[in-house]
């Protein structure tokens, strides 16, 4: 591969987005866990829930800061590295990013302050509200980003028009019309054909990761016989969440498979190593050989792919033979990332069902080997989130904006006289045409080097801080703050200590 601006910019985008995406799903998942714990605290008034909520909030805060710091990079990169793309799609894509800023980021950042610093400044109900708002904000953020990304995958609600300049149609220096996408129907842009399926899949992935993160740390405490009451409660709650969402992810994955087959048949063919159009087998393992157009070492369940997609074991599944060679995605990378994600998802279903069964039998916390599996499984959960996105984005290549296909009135693909799918190429944009016109490879190499160093350093620091917090463990509440039977004198004393107002001190006094 030549180290041109396109390749380097793709490399940089992959590096920065994959590093960034370590954090948002974790904060989305942990947000749900914290909201649950604070709700339990308000309901039961058992201090253990508040201790737990405070503990997870600390881990949440450092992770959130990493997400914010690495997230700004993403917004800037569309302009710095992908200026031609930004010119082509700004009318549509930019709107989603701006909406994310207005509707999600302000909400998150505002209430995050209350969440982290407000324990002794606001009452528990308002604190719970703040936690809900941060959690909601992080999900709104996911909504708008997935609107933007899904529109790239399956554009809708826009049209490609020639730009006007000073009231006249605009032609560039070589006489070509300057084209771009413009919104026709904002509702159709938002609810484009892949948005709902992909949003659900992404959010469930985040919930599963959050639950596995909590279970990993709780299992570690149980193995080390520390904070056992805290760890058992955290583990049980998270296990319920993980079991439900691992099963739900199977259904969501199935829906996504059918959606991709309908919208992006070349991507699905790459995922499944479907080189020929014929009834499809569901491959479990294998290694696609693009030269020989076959999957080496394949173990597959005959007819299952056709059955899952079309409800008929003998229905043909579009293969790469119907896709123009120039529009093949990188088959091996798409196949492997997709299969690794599915393998982890399947493993999670088995693992959480087994653990739930043992929890019901009451023997779960005696099975040390199983707890060890839970300690390390959080890394698989991170990997599954990353791999899923890698598969989705690699499978979209060579397009950055995926064009539609010619279809008949019933929505079936129309083939040309050679039996090849017909892309409406004018609607799409190739990745190689999307980079900034004014930047050089040297500049991008420099920024890749910069990001590699900074991110490497930050990853170590973040892990060290998490490690430190986990070793310290949940802290008991400071005695004057929440002991029962507190006298008025003690409350006043505390008031002086904290510089709070009398009404706030009342809010904090126990029932």
């Amino acid at each position, binding site marked *: 591969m030549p180290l041109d601006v396109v390749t380097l910019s793709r490399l940089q985008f992959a590096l920065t987005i994959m590093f960034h995406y370590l954090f948002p799903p974790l904060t989305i998942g942990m947000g749900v866990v914290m909201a649950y714990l604070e709700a339990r605290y308000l309901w039961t008034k058992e201090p253990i829930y508040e201790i737990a909520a405070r503990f997870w909030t600390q881990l949440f805060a*450092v992770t959130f*800061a990493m997400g*914010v*710091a*690495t*997230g*700004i*990079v993403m917004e800037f990169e*569309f*302009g*710095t*590295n992908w*200026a031609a793309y*930004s*010119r082509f*799609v*700004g*009318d549509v894509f*930019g*709107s989603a*990013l*701006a*909406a994310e*800023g207005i*509707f999600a980021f*302000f*909400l998150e*950042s505002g*209430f995050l*302050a*209350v969440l*982290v*610093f407000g324990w*002794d400044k*606001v009452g528990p109900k308002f604190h719970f509200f703040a936690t809900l708002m941060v959690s909601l904000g992080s999900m709104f953020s996911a909504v708008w980003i997935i609107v933007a990304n899904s529109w790239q995958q399956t554009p809708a609600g826009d049209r490609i028009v020639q730009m006007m*300049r*000073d009231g006249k149609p605009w032609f*560039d*220096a070589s006489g070509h019309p*300057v084209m*771009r996408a*413009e*919104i026709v129907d*904002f509702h159709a842009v938002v609810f484009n054909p892949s948005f709902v399926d992909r949003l659900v899949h992404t959010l469930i992935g985040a919930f599963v990761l959050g639950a596995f993160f909590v279970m990993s740390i709780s299992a570690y405490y149980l193995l080390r016989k520390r904070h056992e009451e805290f760890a058992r409660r955290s583990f049980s709650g998270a296990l319920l969440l993980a079991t439900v969402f691992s099963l739900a992810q199977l259904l969501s994955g199935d829906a996504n498979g059918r959606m991709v087959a309908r919208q992006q048949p070349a991507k699905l063919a790459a995922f499944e190593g479907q080189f020929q159009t014929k009834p499809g087998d569901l491959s479990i393992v294998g290694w696609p050989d693009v030269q020989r157009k076959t999957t080496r070492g394949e173990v597959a369940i005959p007819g299952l792919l056709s059955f899952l997609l079309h409800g008929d074991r003998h229905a043909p599944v579009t293969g790469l033979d119907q896709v123009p060679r120039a529009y093949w995605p990188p088959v091996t990378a798409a196949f492997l990332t997709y299969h690794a994600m599915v393998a982890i998802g399947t493993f999670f279903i088995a693992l959480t069902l087994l653990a739930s069964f043992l929890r019901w039998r009451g023997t779960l916390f005696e099975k040390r080997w199983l707890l060890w599996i839970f300690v390390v499984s959080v890394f698989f959960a991170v990997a599954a989130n990353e791999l899923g996105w890698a598969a989705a984005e690699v499978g979209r290549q060579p397009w950055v904006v995926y064009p539609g296909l010619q279809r008949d009135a019933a929505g079936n693909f129309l083939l040309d006289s050679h039996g090849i799918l017909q892309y409406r190429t004018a609607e799409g944009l190739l990745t190689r045409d999307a980079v*900034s*016109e*004014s*930047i050089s490879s040297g*500049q991008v190499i*420099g*920024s890749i080097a*910069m990001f590699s160093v*900074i991110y490497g350093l*930050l990853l170590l*620091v973040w892990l060290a*801080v998490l490690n*430190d*917090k986990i070793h310290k463990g949940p802290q008991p509440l400071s005695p004057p703050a929440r002991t029962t039977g507190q006298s008025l004198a003690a409350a006043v004393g505390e008031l002086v200590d*904290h*510089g709070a107002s009398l009404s706030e001190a009342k809010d904090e006094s126990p029932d």
Partner: protein
Amino acid sequence: MDFHAIWFVLLGVLLAGYAVLDGFDLGVGILHPLARDDQERRLFLNAIGPIWDGNEVWLVTFGGALFAAFPEAYATAFSAFYTALMFVLSALIFRATAIEFRGKSSSPRWRRAWDFAFFASSLLASMLFGVAVGNAMIGIPLNDRGVFLGTFWDEIGPYPILVGLLTVAMFAMHGALYLYLKVPHGELHQRVGRWMWHTWGMFLVMYLLTTIYTLVVVHGATQNFQRWPWAAGIVVVNVLAIANVPRTVFADKPGQAFASSCVTIAALVALFGIALWPNLVAARNNPANSLSVYRAASSDKTLRIMFVIACLGMPLVLTYTLAVYWTFRRRVQIGPHSY
């Protein structure tokens, strides 16, 4: 209604909001090395602790709104300033992580390293924002397609550097005025009181130099004043606000002094917008290649949709911002949840 003009103004509002709000926490970063011990450094960090992240969202939203409303300007400016923006990004990353991570270990080396990161990144980010404004004032070389025709070195001429230094001095003053409101009474508070005078003096010098340089060198910076005579009123407000800072500091009304500093910054952003109009990115080599609000804009329909989104969103944003500032309105105290 002319949505191009409305969006130009709305971007100005977002930029002014960013400069006023993040300006003081960048300023606190610039002044941070003046703190004498760990306790003082922690007080500085905690003075901005709950709010710096929300302040930075104004920049993120400014970027998103520029992308949505004027994609050609976003694409041209962001790719033209590639190297400078990479430095901005590294500064913002280090700033966020320094604030968050500094207090996570009590090792003096760990804290010194993050202290330096916090100071250097605040200084670098402030300087580069000023350099960007300076370049916008004098324009950059663009071809007919609106693509940047220069290198990084074309972007760091004397004028952008002067505006960069002005920005650093202005944010340092703004930060000192903010700290004076937030640090507890005592010896540190008195020292911060002296910094207000020093930073105001430095800002005044930079302001005068920049004003003279702009009037002499940047042709067209004042041409819109003939079109809109009321714009002279903003100059008056700007000068009065600057003069009001020492008056109110002397009269021991630090709240009013800080408000005057906010007005100073907002007025400067307004004057910047008036100088720029109707361009977003001016072409220094050939004015015909400039990206005006009309050439760089999204379709009318998108500008309208975005306007509706802004009208729905901005009241919410103001509510959260006010709620958070109200919750954390008191002077800083170091507690168990502090950095």
